[in-house]
C-alpha cells in the first residue's frame, strides 16, 4: 500500500544521490565529445531545417501563391502550424510557473527542458505569422511605433494585433524565466569548464553568480516574481490566439468556447511533446534517475485530463451548433465531420480523444514505449485539430458559390517540415551546451539533509 509511506518521503530523484553526483551526472554529457548519435540527429535536423529554409526563401521571393491557398481558404498550413507550435509552447511555462507556484516539486527534473522546448516552440510559432504575410518585409507594421506615416497607428481591434503583443510578451517572459533559472547552473558549468571560449561565455552569461546566500535570496524572489508574471500568460496567450478565430464571423470560428478549449488543447499537446522529449532524453542521456517513471506517470495523467477537456469541447461545439438552430453553424460542423475533410476530423478525434483514454490504465502509463507512441499521436491529432478548425470552417462558409477546396503544395509541406527541423536543431544544441536538468533545483529536492 502506498499509504505505508508518506507521500512526502517518496524520493523524487532515484538513486539516493549525493549533491556532487547530481552535478557530475548532469554536467558530464556536456563535457564529453558529442556522440555519433547526436551528430546524426543534428545532421538530419539541419537538413530538414535547410529544406524548410529553402522553401520559405522561395516563397518569399515568389509569392504566397506557392502555397495551396485560394480566395476562399486564406489560411491553412501557415496558421495551423502557428497555433500548433504556440500550443506546444504552453507546457514549459505551465510546468515552470504554475507547478512552481503550486509547489509541485516533481517539476524540477523536467522544467528546464520543458522551458527550452517552450522557447524553441514559440520561435517556430513566431515564424509563421511572419512568413504568412503577403509582404513579410513589412511585418513590423503590426507593432505600434512612432512613425512619419501620418502617423499611422495599428488597429487595436484586430486579434492579429493582440497576437503580436501576446506572443512577443510570452516569448520575452519565457526567455527571462528560463534564463534566470539557468543562472546557478551556468555558474556551475563555468566553474567546471577549463579556461577557454566556452568558459568565457558561461562566465559572461552567469552574470557573476557567486552562490552566496544573498545571491540565492535575490534569485529566488526574482524567480517567484517571474513565475507570478508568467502564470497569467499561460492562459492569456492561447486565449488570444483563439480570438483570431472566435472574433470572426465565420461559422465554426465564431464561438465563445474557444479560449478554454484552446488553452486545454495547448496544455494537452505541450505535455505530450514534453513527454516525447523526456522519454528520449532520459534514455539517450542516461537520466533515468532524474526523469523517473513517476514523472511519466504524472504527466500522462495531465495528458489524460486535458484530453478529456478537449473531448468535452468537441462535444460542446456540436451541441451548441445543434441547439443554436443556426443552419450555417450546423452545416459547418456537419461539414467538419462528414465533409471533404472528414478524414482530418477522424484523425483528430481518434488521436485526441480515443487513444489517450488508454492512459486510464496504469500499465500503459508505465510502459514508456506506449506513452511515447500515444504522445506522438496526440501531437498529430492536435495538428489536425487546428487544421480542421481553420480549413473546414473557411472552405465552405456562407455562399455556396464561393466554396472551394484546399490541398497543400510541396512548399507548404517543406515549410512545416522545416519548422520541425528548426525545433530539433535548436533542441539538440540546447541538450549539448546547457544542462537539461536544473541542477540547483534538483538538489533542493534530494534527500540530502533530510535523512533523519
Amino acid at each position, binding site marked *: 500500500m502506498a499509504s505505508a509511506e508518506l507521500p512526502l518521503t517518496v524520493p523524487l530523484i532515484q538513486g539516493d544521490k549525493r549533491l556532487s553526483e547530481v552535478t557530475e551526472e548532469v554536467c558530464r554529457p556536456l563535457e564529453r565529445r558529442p556522440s555519433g548519435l547526436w551528430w546524426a540527429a543534428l545532421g538530419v535536423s539541419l537538413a530538414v531545417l535547410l529544406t524548410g529554409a529553402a522553401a520559405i526563401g*522561395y516563397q518569399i521571393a*515568389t*509569392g*504566397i*501563391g*506557392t502555397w*495551396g*491557398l*485560394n*480566395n*476562399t481558404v*486564406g*489560411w491553412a498550413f501557415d496558421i495551423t502550424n502557428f497555433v500548433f507550435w504556440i500550443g506546444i509552447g504552453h507546457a514549459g511555462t505551465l510546468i515552470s510557473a504554475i507547478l512552481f507556484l503550486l509547489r509541485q516539486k516533481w517539476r524540477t527534473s523536467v522544467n528546464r527542458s520543458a522551458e527550452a522546448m517552450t522557447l524553441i516552440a514559440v520561435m517556430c510559432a513566431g515564424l509563421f*505569422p511572419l512568413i*504568412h*504575410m*503577403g*509582404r513579410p518585409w*513589412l*511585418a513590423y*507594421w*503590426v507593432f505600434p511605433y512612432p512613425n512619419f506615416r501620418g502617423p*499611422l*497607428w*495599428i*488597429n487595436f*481591434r*484586430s*486579434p*492579429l*494585433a493582440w*497576437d*503580436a503583443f501576446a506572443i512577443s510578451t510570452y516569448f520575452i517572459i519565457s526567455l527571462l524565466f528560463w534564463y534566470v533559472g539557468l543562472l546557478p547552473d551556468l555558474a556551475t558549468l563555468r566553474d567546471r569548464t577549463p579556461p577557454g571560449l566556452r568558459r568565457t561565455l558561461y562566465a559572461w552569461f552567469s552574470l557573476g553568480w557567486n552562490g552566496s546566500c544573498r545571491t540565492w535570496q535575490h534569485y529566488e524572489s526574482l524567480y517567484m516574481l517571474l513565475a507570478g508574471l508568467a502564470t497569467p500568460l499561460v492562459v492569456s496567450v492561447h486565449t488570444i490566439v483563439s480570438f*483570431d478565430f472566435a472574433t*470572426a*464571423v*465565420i461559422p465554426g470560428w465564431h464561438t465563445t468556447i474557444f479560449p478554454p478549449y484552446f488553452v486545454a488543447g495547448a496544455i494537452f499537446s505541450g505535455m505530450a511533446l514534453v513527454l516525447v522529449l523526456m522519454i528520449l532524453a532520459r534514455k539517450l542521456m542516461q537520466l533515468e534517475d532524474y526523469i523517473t517513471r513517476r514523472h511519466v506517470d504524472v504527466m500522462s495523467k495531465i495528458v489524460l485530463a486535458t484530453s478529456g477537456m478537449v473531448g468535452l469541447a468537441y462535444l460542446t461545439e456540436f451541441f451548441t451548433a*445543434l441547439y443554436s438552430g443556426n*443552419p*450555417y453553424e*450546423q*452545416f459547418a460542423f*456537419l*461539414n467538419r465531420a*462528414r*465533409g471533404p475533410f472528414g478524414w482530418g476530423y477522424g484523425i483528430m478525434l481518434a488521436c485526441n480523444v480515443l487513444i489517450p483514454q488508454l492512459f486510464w490504465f496504469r500499465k500503459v502509463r508505465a510502459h514508456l514505449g506506449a506513452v511515447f507512441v500515444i504522445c506522438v499521436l496526440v501531437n498529430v491529432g492536435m495538428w489536425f485539430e487546428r487544421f480542421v478548425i481553420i480549413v473546414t470552417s*473557411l472552405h*465552405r*462558409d*456562407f*455562399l*455556396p*458559390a*464561393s*466554396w*472551394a*477546396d484546399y490541398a497543400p*503544395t*510541396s*512548399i507548404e509541406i517543406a515549410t512545416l517540415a522545416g519548422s520541425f527541423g528548426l525545433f530539433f536543431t535548436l533542441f539538440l544544441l540546447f541538450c549539448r551546451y546547457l544542462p537539461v536538468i536544473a541542477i540547483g533545483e534538483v538538489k533542493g529536492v534530494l534527500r540530502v539533509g533530510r535523512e533523519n
Partner: protein
Amino acid sequence: MSSESRYWKSLPEREQTAAFVRESREEFPALPPELPGDRSRRAFLRAAGFTLAGAAAAGCSRAPVEKALPLLVQPEFLTPGRAYHYASTCGGCAAGCGLLVKCRDGRPIKLEGHPAHPLSRGGLCAVGQASLLELYDSRRLTGPLIDGEAAAWEQVDAVVMAALERARAGGGLVCYLSDSILSPTKRALIARFLSGFPNRRHVIYDPLSAAAILAAHERTHGVRVLPHYRLERAEMLLGLEADFLGTWIAPVEFTAAYSAARNLEAETPRLSYHVQLEARLSLTGSKADVRHALPPGALGAVLNHLLLRIAGQAGAALGWSDPGAAPLPAAVLDELAARLWESRGRSLVLCGEEDTATQTLANALNHLLGNYGHTLELAAPSYQRQGSDADLQALWREVAAGQVAALLVDGVDPLADLPDGARLAEHLRQVPLRISFRDHLDETARAAQYVCPDLHYLEAWGDAEPVSGVVSLAQPCMAPLGNRRAVLETLAAWSGPPQSAYEQIRGHWEQQIFPRGSGENRENRSFGEFWDRCLHDGFAVVEAESPVVQTFQLAALEPVPPWQPPGEGELALVLYPKVGLLDGRHAGNPWLQELPDPISKVTWDNYACLAPATAARLGLAEEEVVRLEARAADGRVQALELPVFLQPGQQQQTVAVALGYGRRETERFAGIGPPWLEARPTVGADGRVGKNAAPLLEWQEGTLRRSGRAVRLTPTGRRQRLASTQSHHTLTVPEHLRLPDMPSRPIIQETTWAAWQQDPQAGAVGHGLPEADLWPRDHPFLGHRWGMVIDLGACTGCSACVIACQAENNVPVVGKDEVARKRAMHWLRLDRYYSEPEGRLEVAHQPMLCQHCEHAPCETVCPVLATVHSEEGLNQQIYNRCVGTRYCANNCPYKVRRFNWFDYPRRDPLASLVLNPDVTVRSRGVMEKCTFCVQRIQDGKAEAQRQGRPLADGAIQTACQQSCPAQAIVFGDVNDPASRVSRLARSGRHYRVLEELNVRPAVGYLRIVRNRPQPAPQEGDHHAHG
C-alpha cells in the same frame, strides 16, 4: 614654509616689478595684446549670423536667366489627366452597338455603352468591353506582308494591282469574302471595287450564321432579310434554340429590350412570359420562365404542332393536318398555343435553328399571330446578319474546281471556322491571288500571299447601319499604331485614286445617308451640320430602306419532317457559341478567355457538356476526357477529344461543345500566368486553348448545321482539369451534410408574378435588418452615402459587368492554373445557382461584389488598418498599407476579396497602355476588391463641384452599372431619398444577402419574380380534399 628657500627665475620676478605682476596674470604673456572690439559670445553669434545671412542672400541672387524651351506642344483640347469621351460604334461583333470611348492622354482606356443609342441603349457586352484590349495587342501585324515577309505598302499595292489586272484580263472569278458588313460605305466600296471585274462576287458568310432565317424570309416574304426583332413589344416570347440574351445576333440590344418588357420597377410593371425550348442550357434558357429541354431536331415538330393549333384558332387553312409525333406533352403544347394566341400581335417566336424549313414554320407562326409589323419588323430590317451559307458552299466548290482567280478575305477565318479546314487550305492554295485583311496571322492569313492588315476599329474611321435607318459613325480615338491601313483605303487604292477613309465615309454620307435624313435631320440643316451632329452623337436615325415584301403564302408550307433520334450509343451533337468567345474571333483576347462561362463557370477551355444522367449512363465522370467521333457522308471519321462537363438542364440525348476554341491565336497563352514550381500551363498538349470544334460542323441542304449531328462517345481514360470558378452549384447543401429540417439558404430569394401582384414583399425570407443597434452610430454619414441595388430579376448573367470591371480597375489575367486553384482575380463575380422545384431546372444569377458593409467584418480584423470605412460608406482598401495577412478575406462572409498571390506579369509595354491611370496597379502580397469605382465617384464629385452644382443622381455610374445591358445595377446615394437607388431600396422586392449577420451591407438585391403559369390546383390537394 617661510623657511624654504625661495627660487626666482628672473630679476623682475625677484623684484616683483609692476610690469611683471601685470604680465604674469595673463595666460599667454607672450601674445600680442587683445584685438580691438567686442569678443563676447553674443558678438560671435551676431557675426556668424550676419555671415550666414550674407552668404544666403548672395546665393539667392538671380542666376543669369536661360530660357529652356521644352519640345512639348500640348495638343489642342487635351488636358493631361482628364478623360474625354468619343461617341463611336463597337466593332466587337456584327451587332453594331453604340459606344462611348473613354480616352485619357490620347488613348482609349475604356469602352462604355452609348446611353442614347436607339438599339443598345447604354449597355455593352463582355466582347465589346474586351475588344479594347485587342487595340493594344503587341502581336498584331504592324504592316503588310508578302508571302510572310514584311513589305512596304507601295510594293504591296503595285504587286496586288498587277495581279488583279491579270485576274481581270483572265476573266476568272474575283471574290470578296467577308462576314456581314455593317458599314454602308464599305459595302458600296466593295461593290465599286468589284465592278471593275467582269466575273465577280461578294460572298458574305457569318461564322454564327442566321442564313436560315434569311432564306426562310426569302421563301415566305420574297426578301432575303433578317427582321428586326422588337422584344420590348413582346408580352409572350417563345425562344427556340435562340440564345438571344447571350450570343444570338445582337444580345445587348435584345437584353435591353427584354428587360424593358420585364421591368417591375416601372410606372406600370410589366413581365413578359418567356418560354424557351432548347437542347443545352443557354443563358437565355436560364432566364426563361418555363424551359423545356428538347433535342435540336425536335423543334420542327413542336412548330408543326403549334402551327396547326394556331392555324385552327386563326381560321387559316394549312395544306396538311398531320404534324407527326409530338416531342412535348399535348397539355404543354396546348398551353403554349393558347398563350401565344392570347397575346397575338404582342408575341414573338424566335428560332435559332439552322434549318430553313423550321425557320419557315416559325415565320408562319409569327405571321398567323400577326406579329409582323409589331414584334418583328421587315419594313426596317436588320443588317446584323447578311451571310448566306449556300453562297459560301458554292464558292468553295468553285475554289476546289480552280475557277477562282482572286480571293480577298476580310474579317473571317474560313479555314478555322469551317469544317475540313485542311482540305480547304489545299484548295485555297490553288487560287492564284489570295489576299487577307486580317491584322493577325490566322489560318487563312497564313494561306494568303498578301496580308494587308486592317486597322482596329478604335483607330480607324468607320460607319455602321446595323438596322435599317439607324446609322452610326466610328471615329479614330488614337493615331494608328504601326503601319497598318484601313481596308477602306486599301481597296480604294486598288480600285482608283487613293482616298482616305474619312473622305470616303463623309462622301458616302453626304450622298447616301444625308438625303435619307428625316425631318429635323435634313430640312433645316446643311450636311456639315448633320455630319457634326452625327459625329458628336455617334449615330443618327434616318429613313429606313424598306424592302418590298410579298404576301405570305400559307399554302406552300410543308411540315418539318420528324427528327431522327441518334442511333444506339450515339448522341446528337450541339455546337454552340460561348458568351465571350462567340465564333472564336476574339480567341486571342485573354480577358474573354478568362471570363467564366455564365452557365458552366468554366474558363480557358471548351468541353463536352453532358446531362448528368447521360454521363451516368455512359459511365463518364466530370473532367474525364472523352472522344467524340462523327462519321461524315463520305465515310471519313472526324474526332475530337474533350473533357466531360456535367451540365444540368442539358437534353439527355445531346452533347454540347463550344465553338471558337483551339485557335492558332491562343498559342500566345503558353506562358500566361505566374511562373512557379507547381504552375501548370494554360494551353493544352497541342499548345492551344481548347479544341476547335468546327470540323464537326456539317453542311446540310445549303446551311451549315451547328446541331443534330450524330456522334459516338468513347472514354479515353485520361483526365483534364477544367478551370472553374464555382464548384458548388446549388444553395441546398449536400444531403449528408444537412439536418432534416435545415432550411435552404435565403441567398437567392424569388417569387412568382401572381404572388408578387398580391404582395410586393412576397417571397421574403428572414426578418430584415434589426432596428435596434448595440453600438452607437459612430459614423453619422452626413454627406453622401453610396449604395447599390441589383435587380436579380433583370440580371441575365451575361457577364458584361465582369469585363467592364476588369477593364476599369486594371484587374490582371491570371491564367488557367490560377483560376483552377480558385484564385481568379475578378472583383465582381457572377454566382450561378441551380434549383429544381418540382423537377424543373431553374437558374439564378447573382452578381457578387464587395458589399461595403457598414459593420464590415474585414475592417475590424486588419491589424494595420489597411481596410477602413470612408465617411461616405465605402469600405476602402489601402494597398500601400496592406501587409497581406488575408484575415480580412477569411472573415468576409461573401468571399469577395481578392489577393495578389503573385506579381502578375505585365511585361508587355503596349498592353500596359490599356491600364486605367486612375486606378493603382496592385503589387504582390496585397489584398484588393471592389471599390465601388471610387475613382469614378471622385471624378463625379469633382466635376459637380467644378460646375458649381449639386451632384445629380445618376451622374456617377460604376463600371458594372454602366455596361449592364439589362440595367440591373443601380448605384447612387442612399442618403438622398429621391435617388433611384433609394427608391429601389424601398421596393417590396428588396433584400440583403446574409442580412441576419447584421454586417449591414450597402448592396441590396431585388427578388427574382418568375412569370410562372398560374398555379394550377395541386393534384395532391385534390386527393387530399377528395
